[in-house]
Structure formats: C-alpha cells, structure tokens
C-alpha cells in the first residue's frame, strides 16, 4: 500500500545463526546498506530449512527467497550445509521444472566475516526480483488481501 506505484519486492532471507546471520550483523555494524525489503529469518543451520519453508514464504507473499549458510566446509555442525545444498539443488530444479522463475530462489554462502558479500548479495538479489516483478506463479490468492 505504498503511495507511489513502484514495486517493492518482499524478500525472505533464511540465514544460519553461525555465519550468515553474523555476516548480516557485520554488514549492519559496518554501515553497509542493503534494501529494507529483505526480511531475515534466523535458523540454527542452513540444514534446518525445510523445502516447505521456502514454499510457505512464497505462499505468504514473498517475491523472492534466499537461503544463506556457512561456506561448505565451515558448517558449525560440520556437515549441515552439505545436506542443505543437495536439498535445495533438487528443490530449485523442481521449481524450474514447474515453470516457476528460477531467479526467485537463491542460495549463497556467507561467512561471519563477509559483511560486504552479504550486502552485495542482497542488493543484487533485490534488483533481480525487482526486474522479475511480483510473484504470481507461487502465490496463494487468499493471502493477497
């Protein structure tokens, strides 16, 4: 319900507690800007992200969903992000197969020291989604109003 008609995408970012969430923190304390359209949800590990989380986010009105975790090899729980990587690969491939724009979903590995990468990634992602426009292929009409 913004006053101008400019499209403001809603982005959900699942960030792992140990790396990416700290990365976001660093971006903040380093005063690196990234759009306020990104809503961060902290998860204990990228592996916690169930495919249903991603679909749910789209259902409730997200235009793009990004998942951030520790770099492969750096997982706090040793191997969580390796499993997450396989899962998301398959899920994204399935979404692509169903004709849902693949650029709406993304995975990025961001460490606690990579505040710059975090802000860059988010800026890029928001820009991509802004170009794609509103998510209509995975929306739930009930949540529109």
């Amino acid at each position, binding site marked *: 319900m913004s006053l101008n008609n400019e499209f403001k995408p809603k982005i959900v970012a699942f960030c792992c507690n140990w790396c990416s969430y700290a990365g976001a923190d660093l971006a903040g304390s380093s005063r690196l800007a990234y759009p306020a359209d990104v809503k961060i949800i902290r998860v204990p590990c990228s592996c916690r992200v169930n495919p249903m989380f991603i679909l749910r986010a789209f259902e409730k009105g997200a235009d793009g969903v990004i998942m951030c975790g520790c770099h492969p090899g750096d997982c706090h729980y040793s191997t969580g992000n390796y499993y997450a990587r396989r899962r998301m690969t398959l899920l994204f491939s399935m979404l692509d197969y169903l004709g849902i724009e693949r650029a709406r979903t993304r995975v990025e590995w961001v460490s606690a020291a990579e505040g710059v990468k975090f802000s860059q990634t988010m800026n890029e992602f928001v820009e991509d989604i802004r170009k794609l426009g509103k998510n209509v*292929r*995975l929306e739930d009409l009930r949540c529109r109003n």
Partner: protein
Amino acid sequence: MQELVNRAKALLADGTVARVLGWKAGEFAYDPEPAFFETEEDLKDFVYDGFCGANLSKYMIEASKLEGKTLVFLKPCDSYSFNQLTKEHRVDREKAYIIGVGCKGKVDVKHIKEAGIKGIESIVGADYPNPAETLEIKTLYGDKTISYKDAMLERCHVCKGKDHVVFDEQIGESADTVDAERFAEVEKIEAMSPEEKFAFFRAELSKCIRCNACRNVCPACSCRKCVFDSTKFDSAQKANTTSFEEKMFHIIRAFHVAGRCTDCGECSRVCPQGIPLHLFNRKFIKDINTFYGDYQAGEDIEAQAPLTDFTFEDREPGQFAERG
C-alpha cells in the same frame, strides 16, 4: 495361476506362513482386489491375472505387525518397494515369505476405457502367465479389441527390470515390456519454456481433488502421521483451495519420497483424475542420477540414499540449469 494357489496351499499346510496376501476376483472382469487368505478353503477365491497391477508391498507394513509370516506375491517392481521398506524398518523381512512372480506387463481398465470401450461385460486375454497379444472385450455395445500393450500401465512401458531384488522363491517367467524411454516425458517438459511448463502443470494439477490416493497408495509414503494430516498445519489439508495448495502438496509429496521412490508408478495408476504424478517423482530421480550418480531406490538395501549423503564437490543449487 494354479501354480500360485498350489504353493500357497502347501505353505499354509506346512505352517511356513500364517496367511497369504494375494488377490480376489472383483465385481467385473478387470478389478481384482488385494486380499488376505487364511485357510486353504479361502484360497478358492484366489485369482491372478494381468489386472493385478497394485503393489502389495504397502500392505506388508500392516501384515508385519501380525503374528506369523505372511506369504506375499510380488512382481519384480514390487520387490524394489519391499526392499526399500525393509531398509526403512517399516516391514519386517522375517515376517514375509516372498514369492517373486514373473511379469509380462500389467494392464489397467483405465486405458481400455480411454480407448472408448465402455459397457464392458467380459475380457479375455489377460491371463497369467501368458497374456494374449490382444484383449478381446465383450461389451453391451458390441465386441471390441485392444492390444495388450495399449492397455498396459505406464510403468510397464518403462519397466526397470524383470529381476526380483528380494524373494524366497520365484515362480513364472517374465518378458520384456519396455518400449519407451524412462525419462522421455520428463525431458520433454524440461525442454519447454517456463510459460509452457507452468501451463502444463497448472492444467494437470488443477484437477487434483486432494483425495490423497497418491499418498496413501505409495509404499514410500509410510509415515505414521503425515504432515498434511496435521490439524496444526496451516493448509487446507483436504481441499485444493487455491493453485498454491495443489502445487505445495505435490512438490512436498514428491520431495519427501525423493531418493526413496522406486518409481513403482502406483501414484499415477490410482489418481482418479489421471494426473501423471510420476512426472514429479521421476524428475527427482533424473536429477539425482544426473547430479549425484545413478541410484535406484530399493535395489540395494545397504546403499546410502542420495539425500542422506553428500560429497564435498556437489554442485551448487544455482548451477542446476547448466547440466551437461
């Protein structure tokens, strides 16, 4: 067929098994029903023919909880499902006596009706062990024929093999029925534009009535309580209320069995709306094979399932489009 009945009688008589899981004649020529038999007397109703397509492995979950062994007749493809269930500790191998039955392809009345044949009175030619090349069908509206191949289930056209992966004994010969490429349909969709893909699945999934037949028949869907049955879960559960619901249900259903689905094709067989549900499962199978190496669920009971495994060099999720 008599051979199967005789073995069943013998195994019941010598106490090897306490019951037999097989088939009973239905109301028509084409709808035999899975059935348990406990005495030799009961076995007079036993039938086995080309219409016995259902995968009996799932019934073994309940049968494993009963006293004594259950004799079960499994087709080669059913044995994969049985193996997978054993691996997941959902059936007890010790509680089953498996007779692997040879398979020359199974037919379904759905395909006969799709060919415009209606008012069926009798069907000749679907006999075990040697089905005829052509089914001869008497109907209220004249005599009709359809080739056995045309009436065959989708899964038989892309059969994954005629060897039983688990059995105690085998009866009967199998014959090759493959005349299509397993991933051809998936590849056809992959080659479409996003708009075409979306339109294709939109049309198919809009038919879904959320009867849950695909889930309930699936040997891999063996959770005691399904997430879609939870009253705490924020979804319509039983109704395909919006286009989102139908997609979510089918993506999650297929995802949950990814790496465990043996591609037995039961989901597509039972769908009352004829949705080609195997296209979801097969997409995951194809991706798993391409990304992580060939894997056939249910083939090897010791193998590590692809989604509970990883390598350091796995591809990144963003790379899936650039497969070679």
